[in-house]
């Protein structure tokens, strides 16, 4: 039965994309832009069209839910738009699948870009996407909860031990000191737990991606540290069903005192609870070691089947000027010169900006999605109490190793 549905869906999406592309005209650039930047995207398109009368920008607004599937189907059907905004981590897969164009002739001032972001979109020595938005997690915390627990909200924890101590002090009367995720979309938990493994000198794969190393002592200790917040009762009981959004809700409701997230959560929190005294800190690291975070964000790509690649490239050069990048991003721009713009001067953003140099790309492997699923299942087994951290990571390691072939 399922096979029918899969094939039917494919057929439908092919039909619909054929229908949209037949409308593409010469000099018209179709741009798939996500909904959160819609207003600013319209503004940029208007400015570009005013300066380039021969080119029309046709915007199509995308939503993040189901976007990877939609992009892939459009590209594979050979009827894709001219410019798509995608997450950095997806770019390599498209490059390896021969679905997008190289953009070495488009990117200006390559030295001005965040190095980790460029690493993401580089494959085979060529640049396949242009990063325009980068972000990492920090830790968002409730200053009043710090004060009530007798802690100084202006001197947040810097080490793992200090973080655990602070979480213990703040956990009382139905309030959890530090929220972690253990449910929802896999990515939520990868973004929050993998940095701890990195800080401690561990990883999921070794450097040349020939061996799974997630059961190394460094990695297991970090996993123990992460899941320990739940095991010791410092994270909410609902951890196994919580994703990032649920944590934010619990934080807004005052049920969680601190949690990892990006700066994009700040306006949303203040909108729901304007009286909350917000603080932000860098993610604490083991004593004497450096912090780490997953670098996330978005890049522009041009699909191979784009109808008007020349015009699309011209528009991309406009979108990637220092000024346009600084204007368009929701979080931080990938261009270093853009971060100097007054918009990024906010003291609340400082810890997040300081995290950026410690941002790392996740490995680029065709089975990565399955690998993080195996790792995530292991985390859930620990949280469920099925296995110890060592046993769970041994099993995950074995499953990930099998995916390396």
């Amino acid at each position, binding site marked *: 039965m399922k*096979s029918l549905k899969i094939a039917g869906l494919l*057929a439908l999406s092919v039909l619909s994309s054929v229908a949209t592309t037949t409308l593409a005209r010469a000099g018209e650039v179709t741009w798939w832009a996500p909904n959160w930047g819609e207003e600013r995207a319209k503004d940029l398109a208007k400015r570009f069209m005013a300066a380039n009368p021969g080119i029309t920008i046709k915007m199509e607004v995308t939503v993040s839910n189901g976007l990877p599937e939609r992009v892939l189907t459009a590209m594979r059907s050979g009827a894709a738009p001219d410019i798509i905004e995608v997450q950095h981590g997806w770019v390599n897969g498209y490059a390896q699948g021969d679905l997008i164009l190289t953009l070495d002739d488009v990117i200006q001032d390559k030295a001005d870009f965040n190095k980790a972001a460029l690493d993401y979109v580089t494959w085979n020595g060529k640049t396949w996407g242009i990063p325009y938005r980068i972000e990492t997690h920090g830790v968002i915390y409730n200053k009043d909860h710090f004060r009530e627990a007798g802690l100084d909200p202006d001197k947040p924890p810097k080490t793992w031990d200090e973080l655990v101590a602070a979480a213990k002090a703040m956990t009382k009367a139905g309030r959890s000191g530090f929220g972690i995720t253990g*449910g929802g*979309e896999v990515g939520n938990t990868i973004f929050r737990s993998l940095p701890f493994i990195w800080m401690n000198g561990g990883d999921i794969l070794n450097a040349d991606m020939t061996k799974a190393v997630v059961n190394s002592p460094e990695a297991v200790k970090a996993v123990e540290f992460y899941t320990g917040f739940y095991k010791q009762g410092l994270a909410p009981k609902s951890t*196994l*069903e919580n994703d990032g959004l649920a944590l934010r809700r619990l934080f807004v409701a005052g049920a969680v005192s601190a949690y990892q997230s990006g700066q994009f959560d700040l306006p949303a929190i203040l909108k729901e609870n304007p009286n909350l005294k917000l603080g932000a800190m860098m993610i604490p690291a083991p004593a004497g070691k450096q912090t780490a975070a997953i670098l996330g964000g978005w890049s522009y790509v041009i699909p191979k089947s784009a109808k008007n690649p020349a015009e699309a490239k011209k528009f991309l050069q406009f979108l990637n000027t220092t000024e346009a990048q600084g204007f368009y991003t929701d979080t931080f721009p990938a261009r270093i010169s853009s971060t100097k713009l007054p918009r990024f001067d906010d003291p609340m953003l400082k810890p997040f900006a300081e995290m950026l140099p410690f941002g790392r790309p996740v490995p680029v492997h065709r089975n990565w999605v399955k690998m993080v699923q195996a790792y995530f299942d292991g985390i859930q087994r620990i*949280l*469920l109490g099925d296995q110890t951290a060592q046993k769970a990571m041994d099993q995950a390691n074995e499953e990930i190793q099998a995916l390396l072939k």
Partner: protein
Amino acid sequence: MRSNAGFVFVLPALIVLFMLIAYPVAYTGVLSVTNEQGQFTGLQNFADVLRPRVTTQALWNTLWWVGGSIVFQVILGVAAAILLNQNFVGRAIVRSIALIPWVIPGIVAATTWAWMFHTEFGIINHMLTGVGALDEPIGWLTRGNTVLPAMIAINVWKLFPFVAIMVLAGLQSIPQELYEAARVDGASYWDEVRHIMLPQIRPVITAVTLLLVIWALNSITIIYAITKGGPANRTLITPIQIFRLAFENVEFNQAAALSVMFFGIVMIIVFIYIRALANQPGDNQ
């Protein structure tokens, strides 16, 4: 000449049927024995998809899910139908209300239930702790031994009204004379249920159960919207595994291989079911 004309008239329908059913099925078969480049790889995809232990786990979960759902859907549905067949004031209203779970779109129901079951904000824990039945909230969706039963409960809630309505229709077609004859012989109400109602509606129950089996076997909505198969694959059923393989891991060939095997299993179950139940010689009460 005439037969040709007839063929021309059904041709459009045949083409549509072919495009929407025969071609995708055949293409899934082709996908299952080729790699991404379209080269023939024999049974490689089948071996790859069977190797991880999650495949076996998903199959067991599927059997529990289907079995648990069907048993309670049928029992609850038949009981509700017998109840709704009685004469009482407001019967029409109760009948309509009973249909509501079935009418609600699956995704809406699933999301609502996810919130109701939530450990911190859920109304179920709120009510149970409020009246003192529980000392502290239970993580319905986060405990290994409650999450699949919770999913089954939602599925039962969603579909038992359908069973009830079908069985009710069957009950109403039972001739009044049968009851009268039984009463003359001094039958109690329970005798009427056992010897008249149940045998008379057996064909309906058989057909409905077959539908329920098929729906449970390929249902994704409820589980996917609530747990996505987690925690730690406790609610991962094979259809969700196929969906994950195809659309999250972009392994269309392995997904096709799993679909083909699953299709085979489903066909066997349906075949056995029809042979064992539907083809039994006519009722002789």
